[in-house]
């Protein structure tokens, strides 16, 4: 029963977002971004509502959402650390830093800590190849990370 109420609430909040952004040309991505910022993720229950409003099939909306790793199925932790795993960062020692970070957090990629404090994710190129290895904490870019920065990051998200 509670689940149904949740879904109904998600549907009505989704509807409001869709109503606002529908006039845009190609409104699906802006809508999904707003939904993610509203709920912290893109809830499954919002997809049929978007499909209905934009006159798309459920499959199409699912196809778009699942294509972008940025759209989450479940809420992330309070902090999100993203570590660049692309070629430039790997060549600058990114592998070791990644192992260290995961070790410090006790998490694997895409996992969220049990206390909900942090989610750690790989990312493929932050566009900071010149200052590799690079990372991102809660949307803020960090260049030239090293073992120390990694430890700082782990500490910061635990605080």
């Amino acid at each position: 029963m509670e689940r149904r109420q949740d879904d109904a609430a998600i549907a009505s909040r989704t509807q409001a977002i869709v109503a606002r952004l529908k006039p845009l040309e190609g409104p699906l991505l802006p809508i999904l971004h707003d939904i993610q910022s509203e709920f912290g993720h893109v809830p499954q229950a919002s997809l049929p509502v978007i499909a209905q409003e934009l006159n798309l099939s459920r499959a199409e909306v699912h196809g778009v959402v699942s294509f972008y790793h940025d759209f989450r199925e479940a809420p992330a932790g309070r902090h999100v650390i993203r570590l660049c795993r692309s070629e430039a960062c790997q060549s600058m020692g990114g592998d070791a830093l990644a192992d260290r970070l995961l070790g410090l957090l006790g998490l694997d990629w895409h996992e969220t800590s049990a206390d909900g404090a942090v989610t750690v994710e790989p990312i493929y190129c932050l566009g900071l190849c010149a200052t590799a290895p690079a990372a991102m904490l809660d949307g803020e870019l960090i260049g030239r990370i090293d073992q120390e920065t990694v430890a700082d990051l782990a500490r910061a998200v635990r605080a």
Partner: protein
Amino acid sequence: MPLIQEIDYGTPASASEKTVRLVIDGASVEVPEGTSIMRASMEAGIAIPKLCATDMVDAFGSCRLCLVEIEGRNGTPSSCTTPVAEGMVVHTQTGRLKDIRRGVMELYISDHPLDCLTCAANGDCELQDMAGAVGLREVRYGQDGDNHVKARQNGEANPRYLPKDESNPYFTYDPSKCIVCSRCVRACEEVQGTFALTIEGRGFDSRVSPGMHESFLASECVSCGACVQACPTATLTEKSVIEIGQPEHSVVTTCAYCGVGCSFKAEMRGQEVVRMVPWKDGKANRGHSCVKGRFAWGYATHKDRILNPMVREKITDPWREVGWDEAFAHVAKEFRRLQFQYGKGAIGGITSSRCTNEETFLVQKLVRAGFGNNNVDTCARVCHSPTGYGLGKAFGTSAGTQDFDSVEHTDVVILIGANPTDGHPVFASRLKKRLRQGAKLIVIDPRRIDLVRSAHIEASHHLPLKPGTNVAVLTALAHVIVTEDLFDEAFIRERCDWSEFEDWASFVADPANSPEATEAFTGVPASELRGAARLYARGGNGAIYYGLGVTEHSQGSTTVMAIANLAMATGNIGRPGVGVNPLRGQNNVQGACDMGSFPHELPGYRHISGSDVRDVFEKLWGVELNPEPGLRIPNMLDAAVDGSFRGIYIQGEDILQSDPDTKHVKAGLEAMECVVVHDLFLNETANCAHVFLPGSTFLEKDGTFTNAERRINRVRKVMTPKNGLSDWEVTLKLAQAMGLGWSYDHPSQIMDEIALTTPSFASVSYKLLEEKGSVQWPCNEARPEGTPVMHLDGFVRGRGKFIRTEYVATDERTGPRFPLLLTTGRILSQYNVGAQTRRTENVAWHAEDLLEIHPHDAEQRGIRDGDLVKLASRSGETALRAKITERVAPGVVYTTFHHPGTQANVITTDFTDWATNCPEYKVTAVQVSPSNGPTVWQEEYEAQAAQSRRIAAEEALEPAE
């Protein structure tokens, strides 16, 4: 006969008239501009390797196997996405291309199971073919790395592996075999137009996903089979192929479900159907299909089929199995006795809209020449008889004016009282394709049918009229067209009678017919209606498609004439993209009408009173024909109750379930002394029958069906009739038993007789059909190749006739006791009374009839979704489950009539169309209330039906109680 292998050209044909010349592998090729290099090459007989391309969908360019080299251009472009250009020199096989292709194949195979020998696609796998074509000899990458093939790897579950989805009753989805070519996704979008599939994820995680990672059955999938047909591997495979194996021969035949008349290849293993695959050269369906034709043919071998003739004295007796000869002798004796005792007119026959033209022709011939009266009618009586009458009056022919290809040239479609996505799914897909290209749609229907709004389709105007007010709405449309000067004066002056037009125009221009005046009782907002009228009149090629929501009313014939008026007034007749198109319900309802199934008409719609027409048949048949029209179905039943009509031969129609006012039909049948039912199953009508003659399916006979576009399609026998005789042979032998000296060895001889006697069929022969595949009548000396579009240079009747269409409300009114209006229809997975589809896996989608009711009406009555409710009208009552939905407007409820347990026609009344007696199925005043069980009628009926279906031989085997 070998397995028909259709050439896959890789990309769709270009419609351009300008041609381009190029050289491919040294061969000079000329093709229409816009053709892909791949297609041009295939047309020249050079097959370029490919995986993601197939000619049912647009080029995609993802598999990278079809690369070619073009002189003077850099790189290796994909041949599917590169259009031809004048003077181009293309090489499809070079050392460089061979290396690239092998490399690509290695990558594909590195993530594909190698169980080819035990794979269901073995013998029909494009991946395997391509591996052979490119000379794949090793796979350097192996299969031990990342893969989505193995369920477990290194002792652990493989997270990339997805198990098989077997939820759909007819096909399986095995993700481990998928090469992500997207052909299924594109077929679902471009061919079917449902958009039920997508590719989820990205990169190595990409998978085909029905809906939002749902099972096929739970997703939006309508099981049309387009994806299965498109799949190059065993990822999407018919369960029948998995069970049986690959077919070894195939025969082109015509589907026996709706009036679209799709052509299929029946792919066979001996006498067993392995699968039905839509035939790309089929001009009605162009290679597409729906769940019924593609998959729902299992009824042909269902255990319920009756295979031996049966006889009984009284309908309360159990059936007694007899031999064919005894059955024929019995019927002949009984019919002759009844005629001797009660007069010549005491017996009659009903032809079937599901049987072939040849079979229908024989039944009416039996009645006219053998019974000596004209008591012959057909189920078109209860569906499209007003079409015959209305279009006959206005244009001079009783048929749709266009072929289905015409929809590709339409700019504005008016859809009235038809629900093609359920009733005529393949036409709906073709219509949706055109709508996605930008054509506009106007829907006139009390319900919000799928075409009003569904993925990528949205009607410009939906006029949700109150059931029964069609004429008022159409006349209001005409009012706008006339008063706002939107009519096509030049067309009318040239093609019609101007003074008749003026008379009609003055009638429709009456302010009483304005949208503002009619809004009060039609419920259609005047502004919407005006918008719709302007769009139809000024939006380019305007076509009207309509269904039984037009005809099955007390003013059905008037509505058809109003439709004809609209088309003539706007000049939308006589070229591709326009016209008036009735969507015929049954596979051969057009043919049954053409073949003289009506009591007043000989084949070719010629009145029985015409002595010159009778003369043609009298000379050939050597009998004198009765010039008086015979009885219609309702009259036969009335006469039976009165005692003057005593016997009937019913071929392939279940009038007890399909005709309105079930109680009256039952009383009529029970009053007769010899009811002969000729059918596949012990249908509901057979409960009141004295003789049962087992019928044969469309797979078991030769013949022709005529679809809604007047297209005569061949039906070909692919298996021996399980009951021993094709239906035409049964009628033939019955006629012989009655002393008629008929002799036919093959249905082609019957067609020759039709051609000989019927001018519009004069040039039709099996030879011509073999040559052309199909032809559209009229097909005669004037038009030896048939007639795709009618009334090209002028109307068949001379000048088009404008007819005043005064709205007269039906006598069936809502009131305090019956405040809601019931309208009936059908659903995609079921067909008509369901005798066939209920005996297939299609019940997975629709296991029972449901009553659609608006949330407001439901709440007032305390009804929740899924509750059992009692549906009552002045005629009777039944119980069924409610489905709460906003598809119906407040005050309107809707149900289907597919299940005998529900018997929706117990509810419908005996009001009929004024001109043709077509029943008013679409309007019945009803009340709905909560219920806790079946009604008394349903219980009694069920008990009686069980009693009536007993067969003596079977009973003897059962242990005594």
